């Protein structure tokens, strides 16, 4: 099985641990990927706010390049924003022939044409629906027994289009993580907004969005939050000092003793990782290979999962 791979800007920068962990995991299950030739920025949410037609040209250039790579006509987009924008462009061009005409004329400048035939896929979808949980299970060398994970999907892979999972209660990541031995905790906020780019632009509302998500995961007794999106990971991972300064004194029920309450501050160091990093660990890959050292809070595996694996450093 072969895919054109669209990393997107984040996976080459702040979210490079996602790429570092995704590629070996895909390799382990026999998925071949080839980086899309000269791919460009998907346009993301910010571009849409300035010019919709140009945003469509940005996105469709990538789709058209993928079409040219005829041998493997599926595009793999691991970043939620890229995944949404590429799919949204397909919907938009399908609905608005006037915009499609402009886009086609623009693409001709690069000897490209857009037909809308390239499926845009997410790694969660590929791992569960193409490879299958049974195949994933077979590759597990070190089951992550006892590791309690809060599965956080974020917004844009299930909204507005429910392409491969339930829109209200997506479960594919839950199943995958269970397949590699994790315990998935109930996490009702799994599709709530992380604040997006607001954490950088308007910290007051942005950080609150992210903090609510971390707090819920901690209250539910999770050891780690698993994400599928580089922006979600960044927001939940990198602003802990600011959250601790703001809300560190808030108390939550003590998971060890439900009658008591403890301040949340010291517990805000819950690690936030990409789901592929956990799968990679279970496949026996080392923390360094998977980019786990790039997180702001170290992942500590419970004794039941930290079975002596020679590769682990």
């Amino acid at each position, binding site marked *: 099985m072969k895919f054109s791979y669209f990393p997107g800007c984040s996976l080459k920068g702040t979210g490079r641990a996602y790429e570092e962990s995704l590629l070996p995991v895909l390799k382990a299950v026999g998925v071949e990927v080839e980086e899309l030739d*000269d791919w*460009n920025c998907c*346009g993301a949410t910010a571009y849409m706010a300035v*010019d919709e037609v140009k945003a469509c040209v940005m996105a469709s250039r990538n789709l058209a390049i993928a079409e040219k790579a005829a041998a493997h006509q599926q595009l793999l987009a691991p970043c939620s924003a890229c995944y949404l924008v590429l799919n949204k462009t397909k919907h938009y061009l399908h609905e608005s022939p006037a915009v499609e005409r402009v886009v086609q004329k623009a693409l001709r*400048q690069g000897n490209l044409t857009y037909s809308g035939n390239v499926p845009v896929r997410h790694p969660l979808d590929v791992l569960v629906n193409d490879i299958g949980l049974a195949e994933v299970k077979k590759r597990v060398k070190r089951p992550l027994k006892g590791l309690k994970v809060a599965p956080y999907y974020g917004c844009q892979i299930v909204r507005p289009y429910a392409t491969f999972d339930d829109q209200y209660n997506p479960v594919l990541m839950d199943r995958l993580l269970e397949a590699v031995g994790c315990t998935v905790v109930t996490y009702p906020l799994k599709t709530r907004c992380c604040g997006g*780019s607001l954490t950088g*632009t308007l910290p007051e509302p942005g950080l609150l969005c992210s903090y609510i998500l971390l707090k819920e995961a901690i209250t539910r007794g999770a050891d780690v939050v698993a994400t599928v999106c580089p922006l979600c990971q960044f927001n939940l991972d990198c602003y802990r000092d600011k959250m601790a300064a703001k809300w560190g004194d808030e108390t939550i029920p003590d998971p060890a003793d439900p009658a008591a309450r403890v301040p949340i501050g010291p517990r805000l160091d819950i690690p936030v990782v990409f789901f592929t990093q956990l799968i990679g660990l279970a496949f026996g890959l080392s923390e360094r290979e998977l980019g786990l050292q790039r997180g702001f809070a170290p992942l500590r595996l419970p004794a039941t999962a930290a079975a002596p694996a020679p590769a682990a450093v």
Partner: protein
Amino acid sequence: MTALSGPPSTATPPPQPPQTPAAVQRSSPAYEPALTLQRTIKYESDRVIGFGRQVMSVPGCEQLQNCIQCGTCSGLCPLSIYMDHTPRQVMELVRSDFKKEVLRSTTIWLCASCYACTVECPKQIRITDIMYELKQRAISEGFYPKRFPIPVLAQEFYKMSHRRGRVTENFLATIMFLKTNVLAAVGMWRLGLNLLTRGRFPLKVEGIKRRDELERMMAVVDKLSIDALAGNGNGGNGSHHGTH
């Protein structure tokens, strides 16, 4: 407790005198309202007739005319508690042609595009897409505070992805802070350092190989949009709306 009302009555008088001046002190600023009073009711004359129809003619925004003002969007929105007009109010303000109120509102910029409202709207109104449309209009018509970081970020993102074909997030964030709030940039040094030590702060600006190709593509869009405006043809294709 009521039987003991005798003794407390002697205890209550002493705390009362200090209470009154404190209360007056606290509320005293409210008695100087001359400069802050604004009328809260909108006048018919505030409307820019045709604005609502213009927005609703854009592909994807048509359903707005069916809004039943149920407030599902406002209730769901994780950011509505910070907005000056809730999403429900913005929907009605657009439909009723209150252009300035809408384009100046913080609502359109606080929308983080999580699509919760779009998915839940009982009338299938694509509220997120309408917010995008309003953002585009607010930028193209200059309706936002110049140092407000969100539209600045959007435009810098646009410029960078346009010129280089890719976005290098840390450089983008730095530019945004320098243009809006230098002090905030200084406050971010720790985050920058933490990212740097973890290899998450690239020092090289990313770009595509065929930058000229992308440039030519964008030039085509510019040309076609101008032609469409001049020929008064199929306007409202989402780009460069006729400003008014």
